[in-house]
């Protein structure tokens, strides 16, 4: 089992109120799966994604990633896990605007401590894999939306993470470009990557093999697609 979640609870304090974002989640995801997490606003899907991506820790419950309990880790340990195991793809791309595509992609490798020549080579190869071999020295503002998202995917892949976490990856793209991106994710899945997709669009979620629906901080339905 790649991901093992038991009775996950997350609460926020907003002033005097307590918000129960996650109310006891039990979840198992295996290596190589392609999972979509869906739900309306307030269902807790963003919170779940943050915890899955080790950006946040639960208030209670366990989260095991690759047989390592990450729910009680400190900031530095979580940063390391994010660097090694997680590849994020965001709706708004979140690239460094004043850096080239190559530099954006090598960023995770910088924080891994790899040497400059190793980094450049790995980053270049990953960019070629997503079809941007001829755009390596362009800055984000010189790239189209689809190209930017491909750079983001390359960045997510470059350190060979355990999971690719995509949060509304096509939300800022037109339909045709969105389809291209979903094709890339498809291809990555076929190559053996584990993909977790968070979306509120039904037709995007249908690309996956399994849809987990959340409501009010609980799993409502969890079924194969």
């Amino acid at each position, binding site marked *: 089992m790649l991901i093992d979640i038991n009775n996950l609870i997350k609460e926020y304090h907003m002033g005097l109120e307590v918000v129960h974002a996650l109310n006891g989640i039990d979840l198992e995801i295996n290596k190589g799966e392609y999972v979509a997490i869906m739900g309306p606003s307030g269902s807790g899907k963003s919170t779940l994604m943050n915890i899955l991506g080790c950006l946040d820790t639960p208030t209670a419950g366990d989260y095991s990633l690759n047989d390592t309990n990450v729910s009680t880790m400190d900031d530095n340990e979580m940063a*390391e896990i994010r660097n090694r195991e997680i590849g994020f793809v965001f709706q708004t791309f979140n690239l460094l605007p004043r850096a080239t595509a190559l530099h954006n992609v090598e960023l*995770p490798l*910088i*924080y891994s*401590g790899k040497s400059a020549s190793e980094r450049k080579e790995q980053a270049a190869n990953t960019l070629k894999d997503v079809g941007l071999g001829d755009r390596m020295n362009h800055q984000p503002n010189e790239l189209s939306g689809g190209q930017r998202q491909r750079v983001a995917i390359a960045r997510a892949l470059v350190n060979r993470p355990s999971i690719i976490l995509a949060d509304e990856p096509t939300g800022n793209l037109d339909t045709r470009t969105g389809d291209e991106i979903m094709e890339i994710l498809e291809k990555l899945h076929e190559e053996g990557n584990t993909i977790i997709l968070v979306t509120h669009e039904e037709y995007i979620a249908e690309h996956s093999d399994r849809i987990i629906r959340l409501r009010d901080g609980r799993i409502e339905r969890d079924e194969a697609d």
Partner: protein
Amino acid sequence: MRTFIELWEAIKIAWSALSKNKLRAFLTLLGIIVGVTTVIGIVSITEGLDKAFGEEISSLGSNVLYVQKFPWAQQIDWDQIRNREDITMEEVKALEEYLTIPAAISPSTQTRRTVKYKSEFLEDVSITGTNEVKTSDVFPEYGRDLTAMDVHHRRLVCVIGWDVAETLFKNENPIGKRIKVGGYKFRIVGVLEKQGDVFGQSLDQEVRIPIGVFFKLFGSNRSLTITVKVENPEMIDQTRDQIRGILRRVRKVAPGAEDDFSVNQMDMIMDLYNSLTSTLYAAAIGVGAISLLVGGIGIMNIMLVSVTERTREIGIRKAIGAKRRNILWQFLVESIVISAIGGLIGIGLGFGIGKIIASISPLPTTITGWSIFLGIGFSSGVGIFFGLYPASKAAKLNPIESLRYE
């Protein structure tokens, strides 16, 4: 190895962040530049003065005493000492007779006159009446010094300074020629070697004549300076005491009353000079420190703004795996780079200003190694100190909230 990679990356990031907004970087730097420039400028001028002064002092000798009416450097009440009696040949004779410690004693008196040769003339030349006793290390380049016979027989002979020779005798040998000193004819027996300037005053525009002749032609109602060169420098304090004793007797100073004359020494000037320069140094450091403080606050301010502007970027980096210390380093290095650049510019400007001052005024300046270290050290220190708070704020940002920041 890994830390070096991170450090180098941070420096590259800092550099590109700075060059994106050069105006802002410059305004931030201003305080540091002013602070470092001030300190470096003043330090190089003072160091230059130190050197020049030291050389002058050593050439004049620390075993020479100057007996004069007034002290060179002291807190004095002018009303009290204005009416002191002149020093005359009486005191000179008394010293010659009663001073037991081996020393050369030479009186001198001075005025200013025009010196003429044929159609050439030089105005405002220092005319010194003195005897043949040598109390300085200045020797004739051509001809000879005044002799005891010249003095005793009150011959109308003179020894002229280098500049006087150069101006009046362009292609001729001055020795043996007759010049008019204040209207009176004198025969040149010697030309002194070139001495150079002391604080812009040329020592070479001078004519020396026997003191008896001086009194006859230009009057004897001026206070003399008695120069006493002690053979053994270690005896200088005893010599001073003896001089004071002899002079107090001759001038009939009452027991218990203060000296009505002054035995001056180069050391006094050195002391005054040192106290001046320490004040200068203190002022420089004071001004510098204040400017650096202002500059540092400017840097802190700009870094805080920078952190806020780049909140999203910080969130991205953290999501990718940047630890707190990576972010801390990134911004700390940025502020150190800014202030170090400010320091370097300040050092360059400081030395530049020093050089300009040296070329348009008699003040000399030097470039010293330690002041460069001071400049870089202080500015980097400011960068570290004032950059720490913004950098740690950046490091502590929550990645989730930062990613949402617009």
